[in-house]
C-alpha cells in the first residue's frame, strides 16, 4: 500500500515523514524520527508511557495513527525542556528521586506538564486523578505526586524546600 506523506509540527519544528497507514504515531516517533523518549509499555492505552500533547490535549501516541498527525502540533518528552534548561517538573523529578527504572518517566513528565499548563494549583487528589492513566511499577507513585506538586509551586513562583537528599 502507498505510504502516507505527512507534514506536521513536532516540538515546534516542521517535520515531514512517510508512514504506513497502520503505523501509530508512537511507531513513527520511535522508528522513523528517532524520537525514542516516548515509550511503548502496553500499546493499548493503559499505561501512558507513550503520552504526547496533541494540539493542547494529552493523548496516547500508541492509539493514534501517524497519518492523523497531518497539520497538527505535537509535543513529545524531547520538547519539554528548553534547550539545556530542564522544565520544573523534570527538575523536581530529579530532586525527589521520583523514578527508578525510568520507563514510565517520560509519560509522567509530559502528563504532568499538561496538567500544570491547565491547572496552576492542583490539589493532590486532582493530580492523582489526572495521572491515573500513567502506570508506574517501581515508585509507588508518592514521590511522583510530591514532585508534581512541588513543580507546580515553583511554577507559581513559590520556593518549596528541596527534599532532603
Amino acid at each position: 500500500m502507498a505510504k502516507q506523506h505527512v507534514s506536521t509540527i513536532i516540538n515546534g519544528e516542521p517535520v515531514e515523514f512517510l508512514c504506513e497507514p497502520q503505523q501509530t504515531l508512537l511507531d513513527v516517533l520511535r522508528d522513523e524520527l528517532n524520537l525514542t523518549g516516548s515509550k511503548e509499555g502496553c500499546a493499548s492505552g493503559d499505561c501512558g508511557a507513550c503520552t504526547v500533547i496533541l494540539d493542547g490535549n494529552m493523548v496516547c501516541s500508541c492509539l493514534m495513527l501517524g497519518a492523523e498527525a497531518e497539520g497538527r502540533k505535537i509535543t513529545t518528552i524531547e520538547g519539554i525542556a528548553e534547550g539545556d534548561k530542564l522544565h520544573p517538573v523534570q527538575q523536581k523529578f530529579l530532586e525527589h528521586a521520583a523514578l527508578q527504572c525510568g520507563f514510565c518517566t517520560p509519560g509522567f513528565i509530559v502528563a504532568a506538564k499538561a496538567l500544570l499548563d491547565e491547572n496552576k494549583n492542583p490539589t493532590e487528589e486532582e493530580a492523582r486523578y489526572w495521572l491515573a492513566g500513567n502506570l508506574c511499577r517501581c515508585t509507588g507513585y508518592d514521590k511522583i505526586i510530591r514532585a508534581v506538586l512541588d513543580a507546580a509551586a515553583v511554577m507559581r513562583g513559590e520556593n518549596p524546600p528541596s527534599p532532603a537528599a
Partner: protein
Amino acid sequence: MPNLSFTAPTTVDEAIRALAGAQGLAKPLAGGTDLLVQMRSGRTRPEVIVDIKRIPDLIGVREAGDSFVIGAATPGVMLSEHEAFSRAWPGIVEGVDLIGSQQIQGRASLVGNLCNASPAADSVPAMIAAHAVAVIAGPGGKREAAVEAIVTGPGQTSLKKGEFIIEFRVPKPKPRQSDAYLRFIPRTEMDIAVVGCGVNVTLDGSGLCTDARVVLGAVAPTQVIVTEAAEALKGHRLDDDTLSRLDAAAQRACKPINDKRGTIEYRTKVAGVLARRATKIAFERAAGRVAGVH
C-alpha cells in the same frame, strides 16, 4: 494489515464514498481508542480507515433551537468543558468523564463509545435516557435514529454499509428535568462497568415525577430501557415504597453475564442499588432546577 488504506476526507459525501466503495471492511475513525486497540489485537481487520475528524462541524458542540448538537468526533474533554451542555445534562457528562484516563479523554468520542457497541459503554445509558438522536449520513441520504436503535448486540450496530453518524442531537431539558449516571467498578479509575445506570426525570412543581427514563448498562447484550422502573417513578415522590419498586424493576430487567468483575447475582443486586442512587441524584438535580436550560 498489508492492504490497509487510510483516507481523511473533508466532506461528508467523500466519506460516504470511501466507506461505501470499499470492497472489504471500511471503518470510520473518530478517536481511535477502541479501533486501534482492536486492530492491534487482530479483532478488527479493516481494509479502509476513514478519518472523519477533518470534516467541518464534526468536532464541537453547538446549540440549535431546542437541541444541543454534538459533532460525531468531539472528544470527551471538549464535551465536559462545554458549560451549557454540562449544566443541561450532568449525567451524560458524568458518563463521558468516566471513559478511560485523561489521555483517553483527549480523543474518545461519544459516537465511538456507542458504535463500538459494548454493553458496558459508559456514555450510552445517559444518552438513551435523555432521548438523544443520532443523525446518520449514507449513500441513501441522511436519516435520524434514536440512540437505542443503533446497537443491536455486542460489537453489532444497525448502521448499513456506507453509513456513519455525523452528529447527535440532545433535546434541551425542560424546567425541573435533570439526569444522573452512576457506574460501579471494583476500583476508583480505569476499569469497565460492572453495572451502569442512567436516569432522566422530570418533576412537577410539587415534586411529583411526571416523566422518567431509566437505562441500565452492562447487564445484558445491549443497554436496557427499564420501562417498568420509569412507570414506578411516574406520579410519585421518592419515598421508600417508590424506591423499592424501582429497585425491583431494575433487577428484573437484568440478563447479565458471569465474569471476573461480577457474578449474575451480584450484578443484578448492584443494578437495583445503582438505579436507586442515580434516581435520587436526578431527583435532587431536577428539584433544584426551576428554570429550564436555554
